[in-house]
């Protein structure tokens, strides 16, 4: 079934990977009744396949040469499953592999706890199918294969989201996800088919040559693609499924979804919207900028108020997806005005962020998984004091938190730094009023990262520090080494790529050079240490070197405070004369309260406080406090839509009201109508 394509060992890697996945799926199904070996086979196989794809991706990125081949002929429909690993595909494959590998390892230990033994096989199969289909999405060259893989990806994810199908919330999440992404796929099918018909071929090379469509039709197709891919990318306002679905899945799956599944949408935006439809239009760029800004700012604002740790991470995924799209928007704007160098910087920015986000979000979700496993809850309010009980997990989460807040010396910084560059250069590169969008976007980005910092100070500080806030939290203990190693690996990547951003940028050179319109415009990575993109001496940064300075200053600080022979005196925290209990600690809700009040207009918070009156109303026995923020999009867009559909469907009931006479009447009417129509044509 799988025919190895000519072109050496690396070229054979992909068919091999597919083969491995298929065998793994088969073996997993066969072992369905024996969870332990089943789990190991499934995840081991997945890791093997990931290694294969990683090697090939690396090879392609380094050499910059595409690898092509044919997987399979579908005799019945005459469709050929062929693939081509372009540098762009290779980049996304790499991102996938970098996260998929540790996630699989992590899951090997995690599923034992998180997945019912009876469902191990299903989850294992779905895990492999998901990864395989995402890989297929990245390397597909035919539209049918692409759409097929796209759909399989959706189904596999839905299956994983519904792992705990007994819980209503998870069922709804899975269904919502299915519906949203199916609507998206519908848009994609329409747009792709129109494109195919115009190109007269179903291969991307022909369809995405850029000269296939023009004028209003082109804009229409762009809109369709934007919606189609936007759903998967989870950009606002198409994000509604994301905060539901990502937390519902087992944590390691959530890691995959947030880190990788999102990038499938991004990949589509790149491959088609930005570089597949010819020179972008200024309006497209504005659309992307706007969507990006909206997603970034609203995403982080939603994240701020979450008390469910995984939900919080999911919302921040919306934010980061927004940042990526923001960079892409700047790039398309530059392309629209013909500034290749600037466009290259922007593209570099967003592609870097794709990688970095995958890494730190993967890390955070894995750490969150450990915490959820240890405490049995996802509520930040019930954590606390975990740092002492699970020191490693806490450390890794802390690193992830620093990274996601875009702070220097970690890998969140370079990509946000590049995005700022893209926006500022975009400003210098665009004429007229339009340019003012860039500084505004810049300010929004600054706000976003500052809020992200606030959000993760809250998540880490409330969740891991001080006293445990609940019984499970105080009983929590560190997760097995098998779950810590993957986190360590990702954390190391966070630091390494933060200190040596040049590596990423260097790797990106071939990728960017391979994009139409960006030939020989790749931004210059200043060695492995630094980045100096775009126009000469506009800006550059060498985090590692500066890191040394910080280190030196740290040494000074230590030497100032470290006094020979003096022990640090341990004293109880002053609690206004009372005893410090978890109940006097600052809660997550309280932490985000000021911002909640300040951004009232967006949150529209609703709260109700009712005192359970005791003997005297002045001394209530207890106070019940309920606060929620209004889900704007759900309430004002999707809710009415859904109700409308249901109502119309209900109204159609009369058509099939059980009366034979009505049924016969339909035939009569049809006959008469057709006869009259015929009568019109002598």
């Amino acid at each position, binding site marked *: 079934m799988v025919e190895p394509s000519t072109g050496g060992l690396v070229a054979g890697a992909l068919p091999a990977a597919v083969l491995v996945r298929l065998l793994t799926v088969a073996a997993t199904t066969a072992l369905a009744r024996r969870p332990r070996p089943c789990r190991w086979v499934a995840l081991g196989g997945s890791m093997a396949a990931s290694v294969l794809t990683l090697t090939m991706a690396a090879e392609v990125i380094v050499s910059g040469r595409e690898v092509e081949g044919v997987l399979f002929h579908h005799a019945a429909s005459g469709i050929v499953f062929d693939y081509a690993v372009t540098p762009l595909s290779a980049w996304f494959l790499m991102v996938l592999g970098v996260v998929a590998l540790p996630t699989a390892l992590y899951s090997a230990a995690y599923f034992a706890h998180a997945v019912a033994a009876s469902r191990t096989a299903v989850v294992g199969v779905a895990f492999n199918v998901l990864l395989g289909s995402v890989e297929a999405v990245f390397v597909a060259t035919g539209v049918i294969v692409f759409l097929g893989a796209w759909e399989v990806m959706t189904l596999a994810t839905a299956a994983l989201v519904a792992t705990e199908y007994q819980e209503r919330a998870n069922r709804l999440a899975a269904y919502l996800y299915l519906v949203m992404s199916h609507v998206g796929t519908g848009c994609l099918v329409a747009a792709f088919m129109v494109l195919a018909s115009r190109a007269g071929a179903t291969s991307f090379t022909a369809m995405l040559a850029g000269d296939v469509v023009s004028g209003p039709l082109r804009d229409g197709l762009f809109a369709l693609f934007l919606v189609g891919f936007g759903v998967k990318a989870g950009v606002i306002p198409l994000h509604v499924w994301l905060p539901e679905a990502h937390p519902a899945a087992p944590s390691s799956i959530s890691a995959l979804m947030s880190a990788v599944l999102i990038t499938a949408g991004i990949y589509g935006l790149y491959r088609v919207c930005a570089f597949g439809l010819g020179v972008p239009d200024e309006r497209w760029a504005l659309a992307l900028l706007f969507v990006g800004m909206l997603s970034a700012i609203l995403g982080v604002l939603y994240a701020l108020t979450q008390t469910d740790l995984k939900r919080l991470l999911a919302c921040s995924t919306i934010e980061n997806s927004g940042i990526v799209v923001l960079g892409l928007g700047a790039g398309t704007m530059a392309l629209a005005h013909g500034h290749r160098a600037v466009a290259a910087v922007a593209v570099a920015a967003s592609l870097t962020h794709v990688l970095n986000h995958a890494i730190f979000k993967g890390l955070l979700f894995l750490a969150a998984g450990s915490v959820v496993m240890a405490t049995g809850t996802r509520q930040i309010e019930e954590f606390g004091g975990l*740092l002492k009980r699970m020191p490693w997990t806490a450390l890794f989460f802390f690193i992830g938190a620093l990274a996601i807040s875009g702070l220097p010396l970690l890998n969140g910084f370079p990509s946000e730094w590049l995005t700022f560059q893209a926006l500022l250069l975009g*400003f210098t590169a665009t004429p007229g009023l339009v340019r003012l969008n860039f500084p505004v976007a810049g*300010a929004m980005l600054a706000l976003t990262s500052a809020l992200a910092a606030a959000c993760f100070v809250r998540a880490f*500080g409330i969740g891991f*520090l001080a006293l445990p806030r609940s019984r499970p939290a105080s009983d929590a203990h560190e997760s097995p080494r098998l779950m810590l190693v993957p986190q360590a690996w990702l954390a190391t990547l966070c630091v390494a790529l933060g200190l040596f951003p040049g590596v990423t940028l260097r790797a990106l050179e071939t990728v960017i050079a391979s994009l139409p319109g960006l030939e020989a415009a790749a931004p210059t990575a200043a060695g492995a240490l630094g980045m100096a993109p775009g126009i000469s001496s506009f800006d550059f940064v060498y985090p590692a070197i500066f890191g040394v300075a910080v280190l030196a200053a740290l040494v000074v*600080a230590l030497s100032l405070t470290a006094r020979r022979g*003096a022990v640090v005196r341990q004293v109880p*925290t002053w609690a206004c004369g009372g005893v410090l209990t978890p109940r006097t*600690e600052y809660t997550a809700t309280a932490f985000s309260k*000021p911002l909640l009040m300040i951004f009232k207009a967006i949150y529209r918070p609703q709260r109700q406080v009712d005192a359970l009156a005791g003997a005297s109303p002045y001394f209530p026995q207890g106070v019940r406090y309920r606060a929620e923020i209004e889900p704007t999009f759900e309430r004002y867009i999707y809710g009415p839509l859904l109700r409308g559909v249901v109502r119309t469907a209900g109204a159609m009931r009369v058509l099939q009201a059980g009366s034979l006479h009505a049924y016969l009447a339909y035939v009569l009417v049809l006959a008469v109508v057709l006869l009259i129509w015929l009568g019109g044509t002598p």
Partner: protein
Amino acid sequence: MSVEALLALVAALLQAGGMLAAAPLLRTGIKKMKARLQNRQGPPLLQGYYDLAKLLGKESVQSETASWVYAAGPRAYFATVVAATTLVPVLVAAAPLEATGGILLLVGTLALGRFALATAALDTGSPFGGMGSSRDMTIAALAEPALMLGLFASALSVGTMNLGVLVRDLVQQGPSWHPSDLLAFAGLFIIVIAETGRIPVDNPATHLELTMIHEAMALEYAGPDLALVEWASAVKELLYLTLLVNLFLPVGIATGFAPGALLVALGAWAGKVFLLAVAVTLVESTNAKLRLFRVPELVSVSLGLAFLALAIRFL
């Protein structure tokens, strides 16, 4: 190791050291001026140094509930702020470590310090720490866009994001007196007030739970830790003022290392910072502290000013 690298290193050490040395003076100076405006005597000018010495001399105390994060906080805060000083040109139209990055790195570094301190403040489990870090992060988040936009305004006018290059170009141009500069300055001045925890945003003198912000974060710290926090805050304040004056009043800045020029530069810098300090003092003494939820209005004003600065310069 090349000559200029060595030079940069020496310069960095000197500048960091100088800022560390000067910072307490600024704090006490402002206190003193405030006192004078209120017809009080006020502390002696060297009070800041006495305080630091006293605090550093004390034993260090740690809450039982705290972890390594608690200890790491002040040190990281101090380290980042001190390191940040080497990114800003002070006397010479060049920053010692300007080769490692520009405005974004500076802002990022300060944010890193704030992150560390705010996290550490949550470690003791005291409600005040949480309150402080929550409020501090809130105000920082609000200030960030305005700060960025203000800096963009002046950076884009020259076309570089590197402070060294920026100041050099400004010195060559001389003060432009372009209206947009004025707007940007006004905007940034407000942000500096907010970032350095001064009235009307925060009150450095108070220790009343409900009003303090930055102080609340530092409330649990004592001895050397507290010293680090206070000292770093002072340096940070000086840093912001320096940045402000060198960006918008680039006069008297030395272009080389000639001793004469350096002396002049020192004088000019001291004078300019003093003027700004006076301005800060006046604002502090003539305003009342704002409610936390009024701060956004203030910040949005500066945001508007900064955007206006950009607009009128580029349209």
